[in-house]
């Protein structure tokens, strides 16, 4: 046998690789050594991680604010808080009918074909349902806002003004109904996928996204100066539900299958987001620091949305998560 130094080194490496499965060091680092010891096929992802970029968590954030603002506007209209109703409808229209579609279109690989979203109606595709919900919401929110503003400015004669008031009520009701769906469907969207950390939490996600949307909408309106007990109550409610969800998330662990939520940087995103929307917002609100509670909730709602997308990328790239989830 050739006993040159390089041959001996090669033998050493082979021996080490055989014993430990991996050879450390550059140049000799044949991934996993001669016999692969990585999970799955050389540690390659089994499912594909999401291709979505920053637009999508931002869309979830603004969609939640817009959708739930319409719900608050509906409550405000019913109970004669006209100024609040107008502010809420402006928020709903800007966040839900302008920013949301722009972000959603920006995220497409081929943005000029965004209208193809309305080519079919597929109730088994959450993305298709979302496109239709966003369209219906946008139409109702914009129509409701116009009717409400025309009515508030009293520019038309008596009967027409009555009609405008009626139309505003109908459209704002429609915006409220589609708004609740706009804020919650996004949880279904990522919950009904092949990404383990997402589908294992498919019941938590719509509750979290919807509640974060409601709390964020109330927070935006409070920061705009509408300090009324009803919004404070909604702030308490949302922060309390978020606290409960934080506990749920820390109790209902699925081991390797959803470790992206509990380990890695993505896990920190989720935890920081949940603490800001949950316990911190609750405490701040309890002690009367309402603007700070509102800011804490808004930041947390955005961070946790970014966290859930980051979790999807980590979880989707982790073959062991997929295998572990399927063993459930």
């Amino acid at each position, binding site marked *: 046998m050739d006993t040159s130094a390089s041959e001996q080194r090669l033998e050493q490496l082979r021996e080490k690789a055989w014993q430990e499965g991996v050879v450390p060091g550059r140049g000799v680092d*044949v*991934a996993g050594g001669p*016999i692969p010891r990585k999970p*799955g*096929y050389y540690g*390659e*992802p*089994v*499912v*594909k991680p*999401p*291709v979505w970029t920053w637009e999508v968590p931002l869309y979830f954030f603004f969609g939640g604010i817009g959708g*739930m603002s319409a*719900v608050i506007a*509906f409550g405000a209209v019913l*109970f004669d808080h006209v100024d609040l109703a107008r502010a809420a409808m402006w928020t709903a229209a800007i966040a839900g009918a302008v920013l949301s579609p722009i972000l959603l279109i920006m*995220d*497409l*690989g*081929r*943005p000029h*074909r*965004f209208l*193809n*979203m309305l*080519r*079919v109606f*597929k109730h*088994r595709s*959450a*993305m*298709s349902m979302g496109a239709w919900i966003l369209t219906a919401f946008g139409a109702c929110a914009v129509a409701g806002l116009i009717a409400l503003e025309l009515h508030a400015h009293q520019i038309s004669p008596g009967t027409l003004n009555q009609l405008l008031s009626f139309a505003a009520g109908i459209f704002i009701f429609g915006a409220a*109904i589609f708004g*609740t*769906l706009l*804020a*919650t*469907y996004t*949880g*279904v*969207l990522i919950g*009904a*996928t*092949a990404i383990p950390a997402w*589908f294992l939490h*498919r*019941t938590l*996600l719509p*509750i979290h996204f*919807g509640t974060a949307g*409601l709390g964020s909408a109330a927070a935006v309106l409070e920061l705009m100066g509408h300090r009324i*007990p009803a*919004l404070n*109550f909604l702030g308490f*409610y949302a922060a309390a539900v978020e606290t409960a969800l934080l506990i749920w998330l820390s109790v209902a662990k699925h081991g390797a299958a959803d470790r992206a939520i509990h380990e890695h940087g993505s896990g920190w995103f989720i935890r920081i987001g949940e603490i800001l929307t949950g316990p911190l917002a609750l405490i701040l609100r309890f002690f009367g620091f309402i603007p700070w509670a509102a800011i804490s909730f808004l930041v947390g709602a955005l961070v946790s949305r970014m966290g859930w997308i980051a979790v*999807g990328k980590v979880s*989707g790239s982790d073959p062991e998560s997929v*295998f572990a989830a*399927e*063993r459930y």
Partner: protein
Amino acid sequence: MIGEGLQSSNQRKHSYVRDNVEVGFFTDPTVCIGCKACEVACKEWNHVPDDGFTWTGNSYDNTGHLGASTWRHVMFLEQDRQKGSQITGPMSLGDHDPFRWVFLSDVCKHCEEAGCLEACPTGSIVRTETGTVFVQDDVCNGCGYCVVSCPFGVIDRRPTPLPDAGGAFKCTFCYDRQKSGLVPACAKVCPTESIVFGRLDDLRTRAKERVQHLQGLGYNDAQLYDPLETSVRGIHAFFLILGEPEAYGLPPKPQVPTIYLESAWTAAFATAIASLIVTLLAFAFSS
């Protein structure tokens, strides 16, 4: 089958599209020689752009995984296990331990219940006359939802600056060739007929016989990978595998994500109704 010459289902012309016959691929690693002709033929016929020349260091596999620009992928498994009744001796790794090199050409599975097809919001992804799953590139707007809906991690969005970037791509089952009565490019060129194209029912029968034959030869861990019992309800491109599916990066129990819709929508509707009621109560009690 080998020995049938031009009468093999891999070579002769057919009319499956016209006759609405369900077709499939049966891929058998025990006769694959790892030549990657399927990868090359696929790229050539379908004008699939290159997606980078990188050395993975994973055996002879520098393709890595299926994706928007990789529709066939030959896997190279190195396992410390015996292949059939192979005799192990001084030539095998570790002097006396068993060692085997397994090649398997991976491809889109063309699921009976396809996650990508269900998820597609534009109707770009359709099922063809032969039961395969096809992406209409002129309709796809690149929303990326099919990418996370595929339980096998096959379909992907093609990044810029590659040609036709932004859309989702995967194996077409050579739908264009099939319409002209031709065999898909990968099966046509496969020199050992490791990839067999044909009628799905014929292939399933043939695959069962092949597994029995191999087990008789001592391939004790030979099995079919065709998830008929899960919500995917079977795949049109199924595989014979040696050992566990995990080693091939194949999910052991793939599920079509639409089965999660019911519980997710229930939670969404409950949250929607709760939000409406709580908001109205908040105004009612504070007014």
